[in-house]
């Protein structure tokens, strides 16, 4: 039945049979989280999100997770899939489990689990808001655009690519033990403005980065870089911010 409901890719291949093992939790009825396993037949090219939707729509309707765009741009469906943070809509089944195998899906870590795979995102967005995540240039703008060279624009090409999915921050071991650390996503956002040639609040943001909740907490574990579904070189970006803080302080 599975393949009937799940959109097929252009490469027609035999379906896979997998066990999907999901960490479930409903605080209204459960004392603590517990694993539930659902056997699923699906195409190797199906997204993990397709599999979750299949379970929700046809097997266990109470299964709860966030999702929206379904193709990796809205950042709603970050979860820990096969032991690594990924977006469910960007992880294809064949890349995360073998035919006949078991696929584990858990909520991202370090944020309170509200229900099943859905976590409280407020602390994550609070950290985002703490870095002044908005363009600041109080001088009167010209009639047309402010000029910026392609090279200057390129400086923030990676950091402006962030979709705030939280895959990075919730894969960071420092964040797990110390929730006051602003975390990789907030630093990426700070980088986007610090390295914007048009922005005038660089010093203020570097001061925020220099606080004990800022960049110096990073121990270059590289988990964030590996987790990023947008291939942002996050650890490199954090290093660039560290260097900028050092230059400012010296």
């Amino acid at each position: 039945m599975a393949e009937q409901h799940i959109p097929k890719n252009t490469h027609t291949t035999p379906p896979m049979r997998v066990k999907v093992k999901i960490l479930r939790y409903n605080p209204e009825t459960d004392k603590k989280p517990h694993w539930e396993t659902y056997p699923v037949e699906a195409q190797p090219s199906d997204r993990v999100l397709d599999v979750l939707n299949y379970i929700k729509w046809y097997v266990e309707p109470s299964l709860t997770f966030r999702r929206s765009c379904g193709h990796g741009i809205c950042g709603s469906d970050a979860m820990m899939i096969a032991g690594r943070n990924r977006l469910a809509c960007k992880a294809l089944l064949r890349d995360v489990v073998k035919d006949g195998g078991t696929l584990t899906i858990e909520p991202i870590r370090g944020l309170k689990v509200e229900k099943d795979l859905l976590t409280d995102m407020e602390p994550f967005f609070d950290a985002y808001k703490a870095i002044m995540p908005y363009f600041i240039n109080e001088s009167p703008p010209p009639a047309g655009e402010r000029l910026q060279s392609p090279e200057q624009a390129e400086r923030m090409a990676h950091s402006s690519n962030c979709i705030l999915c939280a895959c990075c921050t919730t894969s960071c071991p420092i964040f797990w033990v110390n929730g006051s650390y602003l975390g990789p996503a907030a630093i990426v956002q700070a980088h986007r403005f610090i390295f914007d040639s048009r922005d005038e609040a660089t010093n203020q943001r570097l001061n925020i980065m220099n606080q004990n909740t800022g960049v110096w907490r990073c121990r270059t574990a590289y988990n964030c870089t590996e987790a990023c579904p947008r291939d942002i070189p996050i650890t490199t970006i954090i290093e660039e911010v560290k260097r900028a803080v050092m230059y400012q302080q010296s």
Partner: protein
Amino acid sequence: MHHRFDVLVVGAGGAGLMAALYAAKGGVSVACITKLYPTRSHTGAAQGGIGAALGNVQEDHWEWHMFDTIKGGDYLTDQDAAEVFAKDIIDAVYELEHMGLPFSRTPEGKIAQRKFGGHTREFGKAAVERSCYAQDRTGHMILQTLYQQNVKNGTTFYNEFHVTDLIIEEGRCRGVVAYHYATGEIHTFHAKAVVLAAGGYGRIFKITSNALTLTGDLMSIYYRKGLPLEDMEFYQFHPTGLAKLGILVTEGIRGEGGILRNSEGERFMERYAPTIKDLAPRDIVSRSIITEIREGRGVGPDKDAVHIDLTHLPREVIEGKLAEITDLARTYLGQDPVKDLVAIQPTAHYAMGGIPTDINGLCLSDGAGGSIEGLYAAGEQACVSLHGANRLGTNSLGDLIVFGRRAGTAAAQYARQVEYADMPAAPERESVAMLEALRGASGKESAAVIRRELQESMMNNVGIFRNGPDMARQVEIIADLKDRYRHVSVSDPSRRYNSELIEAMELGFMLDCAEAMTASALNRTESRGAHDREDYPERDDRNWLKHTMAYKNLNKPGEVLIGYKDVALKGYTHAFEPKARVY
């Protein structure tokens, strides 16, 4: 719980965020309700750019943009809206840049621009570089930038609140009722003015570029009150969705030189649009692709796709200016645009129709000038009508900015002039009844099955090519699905984060949108823009140069009443007479 704000914005995509910013500039209290988190809104999925006659790369004029928009809309576009738009969008793009939006740049440091479908110089002579872009993630940058500005401004957000009702009494909007996903509680929001900007409803189709959350909630709520939806028969299928998945592949690939090819490797658009070829407007390209497939020149295992060929472009263009779609093709199809042909097929993309508004976003209650005081709409949810029978690529982002701004400004202006109108005694009553009927409903019908049948039947019967008998059958199918919907089951009784309940509620909204669309499409016996009738293949200006207004008959369930509204055939300084639409 009860809240009170001068201006309340529903939806936090481009239009809603712009409206919230501009309402706040008007010196009134503002809140924004969204059923997602703002940065999850589908504006972020827009890729190719925002059209404005900046002339950074090539000579360009707003008059050319106005003309292209009207011709692109197959002359159903209201020309006053097109004129305001083509002028305002120039400043609006500069305003986005002043907000810090990281546009791609020309070597001189100006905003970069590229070609896009249907955008031409000198009234149709050749393609022009008008689309201002930030790589191929322009929508992402617009969404992020506008959210950032709202954070800066201190806008109050109510995230993951689903609007369940609009409170309209004696012709005036008094607020909304909303369901809080986290708690299951009902909140009432008392407001002097409300701006609706909650997006489209592409999920009524099986293959769509739209997010799972685009279910037409607010259009349906408006329609359930006996108020009209305008031009619902005009629904755009984007020519290039990833095969089988429908995920958007920007028109920017053709703007950068990508070529559509059939199974014989032929550049077939040369036959359909000899002048601008692959850069013809979307309705024409989508029909051309389906014609190729029907005539046996499709590709893929089911021969139901065609190829987009980028292999002649330099790697740095593909991986730089088109990074997003390169990643999508590699991730989902395992096809690398640098060296492979990528399989695409048309995908349900954008509603030209929606809640009718005037030029300032004020919601209209009929086709004769009636309106709802204090209620505004903008963006895909609204029909101003800028896009007429077919929207040009890039004009959706422009629409959000220009008309989101106007709606926010008008709402604040109105709110400053009036006192709060009284809320009725129990404004939440109908919402509570609807939600409690759904929560724990023990019927035998599955929302997922009804939804799937709706999506498949809409795709087959009210898709790119339409005809009377198929659509008449679809009217019956929808009536039957609505009947079954009354027996839908919701097994999860919980209050907190009850996503099963939400999906069931959204299905009800989708069924209404499908009903209004099908009735409007069956009624219009001509072909115009995106509405193509095999049984009425010609455009018929004598009888059909008018907007459709579809009303739910509140006295007879399932019946849709059709009215009309005149097309504004003149702008303020320019007017373009309807002509045959060739490219």
